[in-house]
Every structure is written in structure tokens, then in C-alpha cells.
């Protein structure tokens, strides 16, 4: 058997001579796969930036149009008008809260009776209409059919009667009377049962009675509302003028872009005759500059008018707001009244400052790029797709994301860390074997299923709970929307508990046994050992667990998209803890909701990518901090 001579170093194989061999190729193949992760990360960053960075110049141009077309000028007055409307709405709400609070019993009784009757008529309407149809057509195809229909109706009626809603505020005799009157109804009976009408009348008279002592206040509110009419008319008038200018400028921008692309095409065209044609087309499409100065001049002429109207409004409001009652008997109404009292000096101050703002405003003040960045980061409105002006301000979304995360962490930290301490320190092996897989199981629930649970089950349970009289002391109860920050926070807490639990448990597990042995030897009790020795030793690990949980909560999409209520507005913090029961929108939710609908390459589309960049940066920052803490423990 011939011995194969391996190539000596002096005379290597011809592949090896060139620094290349099959083995090396395999190695480089695997290395390139490892490098793929780097490529993906780079691609993510590059493409987010590529799509996102175009946002700021585009938004700057939009803001510039907003200014040179005079929309900004109108918005100075409009802002005051909105503030005025909000203030009067708060006053109105306070007024009605006062009245309804005083006759809450009548209101509830009336509502309950009506609910019973409505439930009945909803359930039986289908068969009732069938009978009516049958009679209307006049087809007398034998009473057999009619009999079937009547029979069906009777069955449905019985079923409906068996499943009427509860009426905790009606006495038993009243309920029995109501049910009896419903039972006695014929197919042809129209109108409400007598009790429903009577209760509604009772409620109306109670309302009138309660309104009597505060009739003076009613007239105050009415005159306050009326004071805004002048400003409202002025704003409407100016709005029409500036929208026309804006449209003209925007159309001009579009034409300009077309012309540029035509010119670019002409520069690339190979055929000289085609180039000529494209150039000619571009020249033709050269639109005349829209007339900005003319409308602007006429708008500027309105300045004194605006100032005068604002001064008049201020004078009127100052007098009226001074006549507000000092306090109200109903707590809800009183809260609203206090809010209005607090807001009214601010409102008056804003009105005073307006005249100066109006005189100083200039339409030719340049809009630097930093303005668009500032407007994005500190803007309080995220308004898109409107006829007036689109604003991309991140604050409402950020506020929603942060508040939801806050609720989630407030619930998940005690639960997750507490469970980890219990399982690691106190539980028997059997308990460990049962509880650990169950909690890890929660991690496997897909987030869209959690969102489904929230929207169909949890939200409804929460709303029903909040309507119980016994729980009325909880701030924010009864809740207005069943999908709100709190609902989303609860579900996200459930979602982040497994993450926090397993990482915190790992951290506790990693504390050397010598620590607890030493503590035991010194005579410390189990609790002392756990809380004074083990937890401090594992603290940075637990902190890392919490941070990673936070990263997961902020980045979660489907739950908040389904459950947070999707109202793009900074929550109204004057409600105290009740703020957490308001609907909201989030950074992740807005991307998921709007990316499918925006035109490619528009400013709105790019704004969503900027939100993505922000999210990416925030989550990476949180995770990097967490890993720093993890490394500290292992070192």
C-alpha cells in the first residue's frame, strides 16, 4: 500500500500555496454566517435612518408652509378659542355633575327601568317585525303561519323575560310591576311601559328641582359661552382665507417636484430629440409662483381686529369667571369647578399675552431645521390626515407608553420579584416543580392572545367592577372607557412577570451558598437571611431583571394596540389617579396602526420611522444598562 506523502512545507499543495484550502473555505463560510448578525443589525440601523432622516427636512417645509400661508397666525386665535370652549365644557360638566349628583337615585332608577325594557325589546324585535311584516303584506296564507310566528314570538319573549338585567335600585314590587307590564304587552303595543315613563318623569322633575337653586349659575355659563361667538366668527373667516393660500403653495410644490424629475429625466435621456421634448415639457410646467403676499397683506390688516376681539373676550370673561360659585356640594362637580377655577387665570393670562403675540408674529420669519426637531420632540399634538395642518409631536405617544409601562411595572415588580423570592427561598421542591413551569408557560402565550383576552374579557370585567356602588371611592371609577391605560398595564404586567421572575430567580440562585450559611451560623432567622443577606447580594441581578422586563413592556405592540384605547392625546392629569383609567396611544401602537395606511415616502411615513428609531434607541439603552448590571453580578 503506497504511503501518501503529505506535501512538505517547502512544497505545499497548490491551493495551500495561495493561502487557500478547503478547510479554510469552510471556516470562512461559517465566519460569514456569524457576520450575518452584524449585517442585519447594520441594515436595521441604516434603513431606519435612511427612511427616518428625511422626515426632518420634509416636516420643516410643512412648518414653513404653515407659517407663510398664515395658518400659524390663525392658530394663535384658534388656540384661545379652543381654550375657551374647553373651559366652558368643564363648567357645563360641573353643572350637570352637580345636578345629576343630587338626583343620582332618580337617574339610576330611570336608567335601570329603561335598560330592562330596552333589553326586552332588543331581544324580541326580530320576531315582532316578522309578524308586523306578515300583517302588512296582507298575505292571508292561512293563520297557520301567523300562529307559528306568534309562537316564536312567545318563546323569544319568555326567553327575554328570563334574562332581564338586574335592577339594584328598584324595589321588588316595582320590578315585579315592570315585568308584569312587559309581559302583558301585545305585539302591537307601542310606547314605553308606565313605570319607565313615570320614572323618567320623576327624574326630569328632580332635575328641574335641583337646577332651580343654581339657575343663576346656569346663566353665568351661558353668558360665558356666548362671549366666544365673536372670536369664533373671526377665526372661521380667516380659516377660509389661509386654507386657500396653503393649497396653492402645496400645489406649486408638487408641480415643482414634477418639473425637477422631468429635468432629471431629460439629463439622463440619451436621445437628443427626447431630451428636447422633456425640457420643453418641464418649461411648460413651470408654474407661476402662487401669490402669497396679497392674502398675507389682507390677513395682516385683520391684526387690530383680532387684538380688539381678544381684549373684548378677556374683559367679558374676567367679569363672568369672577361670578363662579366658591364650591359645590357634589364632590365630582366640585373637582371640575376647582379645575375650572385653576385654569381660568391661566386662560385670562393667555388672552392678555395674545395681543403681543399677534403684533410680533411675522410670516417671513425663517423656519430653521432645529424647529422641526424641536416640534417633533416637544410637540403636544400628533395630528395626521387632517384638512388643517398635520403635526407630529411625540409627547402624547411617549406619555402613553410611559404610563402604561409604569402601571405594568408597579404590578409586575412586586409580583415577579416576590414570587422569585418565595420560590427560591421558601418553597418546597414540589411547589417549585409546579409553579416554575406554570409561570414559564405564561411567557409562551402569544401577545395577540393576551390582547384578545384584554379586549373581550378583562376590559368588560373591569368596567362592570367599576360600576359597583361599593367601589365608587376608587379614583377614576366608574370608568368611561373599558380599554384604557390600566387595562393595558395589567396585561403587560402579566406578560413581563415571567421575564422578571425567571431572571430574578437566576440572580437569587447565583448568590453563593456560603453567604446564607454564614448568616445562618450567626443565628439569623430565615427572613433575616433572605432580606438582609441574599437580596442585597442579588440586588443588581434583580435590577437587571426589572430593566429587561421594562424593555419588553415598552417594545410590546399587539397588547397595547388592542387594549390601550388608541386615543392620541396627552392624558388629563388633573384627574389624579383617575388618569390611569383614560385611554391612550403608544409609540409601538402608532407604528402598527398607521404604517399600513400612509403613502410611501410621505412625511407621515417618515415620521413613523423616526418613532421607530426612538423606540430602538430607548430599548437598546435599557437593555445595555441591564446587561451592565448582569455583568456586575457575574464579576
Amino acid at each position, binding site marked *: 500500500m503506497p504511503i501518501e506523502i503529505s506535501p512538505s512545507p517547502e512544497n505545499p499543495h497548490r491551493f495551500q500555496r495561495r493561502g487557500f484550502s478547503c478547510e479554510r473555505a469552510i471556516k470562512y463560510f461559517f465566519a460569514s454566517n456569524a457576520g450575518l448578525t452584524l449585517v442585519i443589525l447594520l441594515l436595521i440601523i441604516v434603513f431606519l435612518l435612511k427612511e427616518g432622516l428625511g422626515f426632518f427636512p420634509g416636516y420643516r417645509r410643512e412648518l414653513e408652509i404653515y407659517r407663510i400661508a398664515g395658518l400659524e397666525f390663525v392658530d394663535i386665535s384658534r388656540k384661545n378659542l379652543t381654550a375657551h370652549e374647553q373651559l366652558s365644557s368643564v363648567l357645563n360638566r360641573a353643572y350637570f355633575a352637580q345636578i345629576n349628583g343630587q338626583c343620582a337615585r332618580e337617574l339610576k332608577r330611570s336608567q335601570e327601568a329603561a335598560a330592562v325594557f330596552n333589553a326586552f325589546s332588543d331581544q324580541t324585535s326580530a320576531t315582532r317585525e316578522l309578524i308586523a311584516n306578515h300583517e302588512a303584506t296582507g298575505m292571508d296564507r292561512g293563520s297557520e303561519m301567523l300562529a307559528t310566528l306568534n309562537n316564536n314570538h312567545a318563546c323569544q319573549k319568555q326567553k327575554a323575560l328570563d334574562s332581564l338585567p338586574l335592577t339594584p335600585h328598584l324595589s321588588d314590587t316595582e320590578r315585579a310591576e315592570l315585568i308584569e307590564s312587559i309581559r302583558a304587552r301585545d305585539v302591537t303595543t307601542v310606547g314605553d311601559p308606565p313605570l319607565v315613563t313615570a320614572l323618567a318623569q320623576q327624574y326630569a322633575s328632580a332635575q328641574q328641582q335641583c337646577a332651580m337653586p343654581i339657575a343663576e349659575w346656569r346663566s353665568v355659563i351661558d353668558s360665558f359661552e356666548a362671549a366666544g361667538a365673536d372670536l369664533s366668527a373671526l377665526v372661521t373667516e380667516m380659516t377660509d382665507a389661509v386654507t386657500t393660500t396653503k393649497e396653492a403653495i402645496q400645489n406649486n410644490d408638487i408641480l415643482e417636484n414634477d418639473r425637477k424629475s422631468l429635468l432629471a429625466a431629460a439629463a439622463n435621456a440619451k436621445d437628443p430629440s427626447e431630451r428636447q421634448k422633456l425640457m420643453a415639457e418641464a418649461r411648460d410646467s413651470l408654474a407661476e409662483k402662487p401669490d402669497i403676499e396679497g392674502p398675507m397683506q389682507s390677513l395682516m390688516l385683520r391684526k387690530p381686529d383680532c387684538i380688539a376681539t381678544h381684549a373684548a373676550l378677556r374683559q367679558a370673561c374676567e367679569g363672568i369667571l369672577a361670578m363662579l360659585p366658591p364650591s359645590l356640594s357634589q364632590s365630582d362637580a366640585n373637582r371640575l369647578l376647582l379645575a375650572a377655577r385653576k385654569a381660568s387665570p391661566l386662560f385670562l393670562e393667555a388672552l392678555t399675552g395674545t395681543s403681543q403675540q399677534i403684533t410680533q408674529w411675522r410670516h417671513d420669519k425663517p423656519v430653521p431645521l432645529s424647529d422641526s426637531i424641536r416640534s417633533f420632540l416637544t410637540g403636544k399634538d400628533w395630528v395626521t390626515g387632517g384638512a388643517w395642518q398635520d403635526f407630529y409631536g411625540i409627547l402624547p405617544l411617549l406619555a402613553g407608553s410611559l404610563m402604561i409601562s409604569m402601571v405594568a411595572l408597579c404590578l409586575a415588580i412586586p409580583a415577579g420579584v416576590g414570587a422569585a423570592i418565595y420560590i427560591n427561598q421558601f418553597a418546597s421542591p414540589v411547589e417549585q416543580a409546579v409553579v416554575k413551569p406554570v409561570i414559564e408557560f405564561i411567557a409562551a402565550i402569544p401577545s395577540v392572545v393576551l390582547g384578545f*383576552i384584554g379586549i373581550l374579557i378583562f376590559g368588560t370585567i373591569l368596567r362592570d367592577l367599576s360600576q359597583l356602588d361599593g367601589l365608587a371611592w376608587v379614583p377614576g371609577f366608574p370608568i368611561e372607557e373599558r380599554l384604557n391605560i390600566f387595562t393595558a398595564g395589567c396585561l403587560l404586567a402579566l406578560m413581563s412577570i415571567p421575564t422578571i421572575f425567571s431572571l430574578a430567580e437566576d440572580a437569587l440562585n447565583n448568590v453563593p451558598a456560603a453567604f446564607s450559611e454564614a448568616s445562618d451560623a450567626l443565628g439569623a*432567622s430565615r427572613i433575616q437571611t433572605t432580606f438582609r443577606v441574599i437580596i442585597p447580594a442579588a440586588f443588581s441581578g434583580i435590577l437587571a431583571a426589572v430593566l429587561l422586563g421594562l424593555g419588553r413592556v415598552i417594545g410590546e405592540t399587539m397588547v397595547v394596540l388592542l387594549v390601550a384605547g388608541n386615543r392620541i392625546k396627552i392624558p388629563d392629569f388633573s384627574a389624579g389617579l383617575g388618569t390611569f383609567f383614560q385611554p391612550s396611544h403608544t409609540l*409601538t401602537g402608532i407604528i402598527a396602526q398607521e404604517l399600513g395606511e400612509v403613502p410611501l415616502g410621505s412625511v407621515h411615513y417618515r415620521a413613523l420611522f423616526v418613532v421607530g428609531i426612538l423606540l430602538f434607541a430607548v430599548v437598546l439603552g435599557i437593555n445595555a444598562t441591564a446587561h451592565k448590571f448582569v455583568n456586575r453580578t457575574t464579576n
Partner: protein
Amino acid sequence: MLNPELLIRKGLPKGHFKDRIVRWILGATTYAIVIIAALLFLKIIKDGAPVIFTSKAPFVNFEFLLDKNETLHVFDDAQGVRHQLPASAYNDYLKGHNGVPIYNQQTFSYSGGGIVGPIVGTALLTIGSMVLALFFGVCAAIYLSEYAKQSPFIHAVRLAILNLAGIPSIVFGLFGFSVFVLAVPVITSAPSDRSWLTIPLFIGDMVVSFQGWNSSLIAGCATLACMILPVIITASEESLRAVPQGFRDASLAMGATRWQTIRTCVLPFSLPGILTSSLLAITRVAGETAPIMFTAAVAAKDDLPWESLANPWDLLSSQVQALPYHIYTLAARIPSSEYTQRAQYGSVFVFILLVMSLSVGSMLLRAKLRSRLKW
């Protein structure tokens, strides 16, 4: 009284009650989590199981699993009998009862028929993305555990893996949308307007056009694969490292090359571990909604993915329905009523069953593997 502990801690120690209370509170927290989780499962099982399982043989409602998704029509006929029919059966009914009026008609989108489309779509997305992620992930893990030495490159790769694992799924959705849907190269004879670079191939009028794959199965698979890659790499590296160093040393000492060593002495022993942990990754891929919303999923589709295709490759470039996206549609876009509950809870139940069986499977397999492979 021979137990030394009892001798030392004679009687109730001072902090005994505090001790008990703290322990009780912690225990109550733990069991509260367990009970809430159990209640949620019970609720879904209670409402969803009747849709799938029936009391008569064969005990499983295959119609729901195997029918296509349709709009549900609810109406009364002249006799006052209430009908609930999916769109196709409804049209047949109208034809069969020519001119007979119907009353109280209501329609519910996505609520009739079955969910075979979403199930198939999820299966295709999962298989496609797992094939991609396993191939690239295992190769990367082999490099990291078998070849890599300390170097700036390795450091950067590890950092990238760590960071990729933390990126929110919606950002992966944005990434997939801007890269796979809008920017990757395709070979075509008709480049689209949005292509940012075209390279002529000089074969006919074919060009390489960077215009993306549109919203399609392949774009969704690629996005999901990128998302799951760090999980696969970490898990694979762990099971590769679990193979004792002695195996490699022995093989290398026998004169085998590094690749022969990997192929014959490392991979066969770590493969079960890799596959087991990738089962867990499957549950994540199957459950994600955000990355596929813009890259692959579509709410309503009449055909199954492979029906009415000109050639088999078009399967990759067609949109699919997906179970998580279907659930999102059912939860967010249609009002809940007694007629939609069957579709809603049924879909969620099937989905939970699927995901849970995968995750239980992976847990059991892992336990079995740990007891078998000990060296």
C-alpha cells in the same frame, strides 16, 4: 429534642409572626399569579373547546379546522327560523329559494366558515422562517463555538446578537418592510418605479432591480428569521458547547480535520439539543404578529396559498393569512356578538393549543434529553 436546630431555636423566636406573615404574603403573590394564569386558560378553554370538540364521534369539528374563512350571514326566513350561513352557503340558499324574502339580515365579516387559511399560512411562515434561521443560526453558532478565538470581530458579533435579541418586534416589522418589501433585489424584466438601482443583466431584457419582494410569504419568512436568529444562535451555541471537549480532542488526535471533527463528532451529539430549543423558538415565531403585519399577512383571502398559481414559485411571492393576524382582525375590527364568538374563541383556542403543545413538547423533550445525555 435531639434535633440541634430545635435545641438552638427553643420556643417561638421573637420575629416568628413577622416571619409567618412575610412568608404568607410572598406565597400569596406567587399563587395569585398561578391562579390568574389558570383562570385565563380555563376561560379560553371553556369558550373555545365547544367549537373544536363535539360530543359525537369523531369528537373533533373538522369543519372549523378545514373550511375556508368567509363572511357570516345571519337572517330569518319567513317562518321566523334563524339561519347562520357562511357566504357560499348563503348564496346557494338565495338561489334555492328564489324570490322568497328574508328578514333581519346581519353580516359579520371573517366570522363564518373555518380557519384553514390562517392555519396553513402560519405553518408556511413558521416552516420558511425556521429553515432560514436554523441554517444561518447553526452555521453562525458553529463558528462561535468551534472556530472563534478572542478577536474584535467575535466581540462585535456577540454584541450584535445581544442587541438583536432586545429589539422590539415592531421595529423588526419596520425593518422587514423597508428592506424585504421595498428594497431587496429581484430579477425581473419590468423594473418598478420605486427601484433605487437597476443593473442590466444583458440576458434578454432582464435586469436586477432593487425593488423588494412586496408583501409576500418570503418577505415575512425573512423578517421572522432575522428576529429569531439571535435565539437560535444562543441556543445552538449552548448545545454545541455541551459536547465534551474530549470528543473533539480525540477526533483531532486521530488526524481528522476540524470540519470532519465537527461533522462526525460534534454535530450529531448536539443536534437533538439544537432541535429541542428551536421548538421553543417556533412558539415565538408562530405567535408574533407585529413583524408580519406589513410584510406578509393579509386579512382576507379566498384561495389557499397554493391554489390558482401560475407556477409553484409564485407561492413565495403571494400574501398569506396568518393565525395571529386573523385573531387580531377578529378582536379589533369586528364587534363582538353571539354570532362572532364561535370564530373568535375557536381561533384563539386552536392557536393556544398549537403554541402550548409546541412549548410543552419542547419542555418534555428537554427533560428527556437531559436525563439521557450525560457525560
